[in-house]
């Protein structure tokens, strides 16, 4: 290498003709729909719809037992937690901030820490509340028929056990490993901008 100008001359020889033409790029940009935003909007819609159905049920189903109302309330709270978490995370995709690289890495680190908090705390709380809600909600519907009671509660307990002891730990382990690695990488990059 003789000097930086030699490198600049070489650098500029990179072929850029595979890039789309400006008109084509404009069409692509107009057509672009962010799948992540769509998924989050769908999740918020479903959570709010379920909450509305539960509220409607609470008002009109004429249940008399406290356990049903408590169960309904727990399930509504879970739907609201799900909706709130997704609305908060949606802001991240919609709010555009003109970050420099240093601010962007800090923002990504904070986002990952929020996600880690969600998996470690919010998701556990949501699952616990919905599990209790589900068990309480069914009681009034099945307590008069012993066979139905046993079948319903066995199915519910098996379902919850699988969720708590198989699916969640597996997903959590996977997500945790991925997030730990991402945080390590982000930390490493943050240290390069000091």
């Amino acid at each position, binding site marked *: 290498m003789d000097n930086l100008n030699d*490198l600049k001359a070489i650098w500029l020889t990179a072929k*850029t003709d595979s890039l789309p033409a400006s008109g084509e790029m404009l069409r692509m940009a107009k057509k672009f729909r962010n799948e992540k935003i769509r998924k989050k909007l769908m999740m918020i819609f479903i959570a709010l719809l379920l909450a509305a159905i539960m509220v409607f049920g609470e008002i009109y189903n004429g249940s008399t037992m406290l356990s049903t109302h408590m169960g309904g309330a727990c399930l509504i709270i879970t739907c609201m937690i799900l909706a709130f978490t997704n609305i908060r995370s949606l802001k991240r995709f919609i709010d555009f901030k003109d970050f420099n690289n240093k601010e962007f890495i800090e923002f990504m680190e904070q986002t990952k820490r929020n996600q880690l908090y969600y998996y470690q705390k919010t998701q556990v709380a949501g699952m616990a509340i919905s599990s209790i809600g589900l068990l309480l909600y069914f009681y009034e519907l099945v307590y008069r028929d012993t066979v139905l009671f046993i079948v319903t509660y066995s199915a519910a307990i098996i379902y919850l056990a699988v969720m708590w002891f198989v699916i969640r730990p597996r997903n959590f382990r996977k997500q945790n490993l991925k997030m730990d690695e*991402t945080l390590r990488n982000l930390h490493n990059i943050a240290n390069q901008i000091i």
Partner: protein
Amino acid sequence: MADFEEIYSLYSPQIFRVCMGYVNDAEQAKDLTQETFISVWKNLSSFRNESKISTWIFRIATNNCLRAVEKNKRVTKVELPYNLPAVQEETQEDKLVFLYKAIAGLEEMERIIISLVLEDLPQAEIASIVGLSDGNTRVKIHRIKEKLAIKFKDHGQFE
């Protein structure tokens, strides 16, 4: 307000080269360039001229490159093999491939900084894109140049 197509025609080759310097993969660099201009298109109306439009676009592009860590696609550093046979007649393409390899051996932020230097951006603009002080940027650029010079010297390239 500048026209999108005009902005694209002016900056897309630069953005592609900077992304290429970061990822050392033409397809990935093309995807990153397109993602950058989709973001430019979506947010052009909110651009408030607080910085130069080039600074704004380079920030979006380099942040997109950095976002690769989120997908755990951390671009692995490439170590150049030692004792490369001295090539008598190097084509421009060979030289470019070697330059990309040498850059791929640097840390993430070093790759971004040297790519911006090679695009001939003023140091103050590079500092504003990266988020470092002017003085710190100058020191970093100097160190990166030294690192590259060693790599080139070790492999007997372009002497």
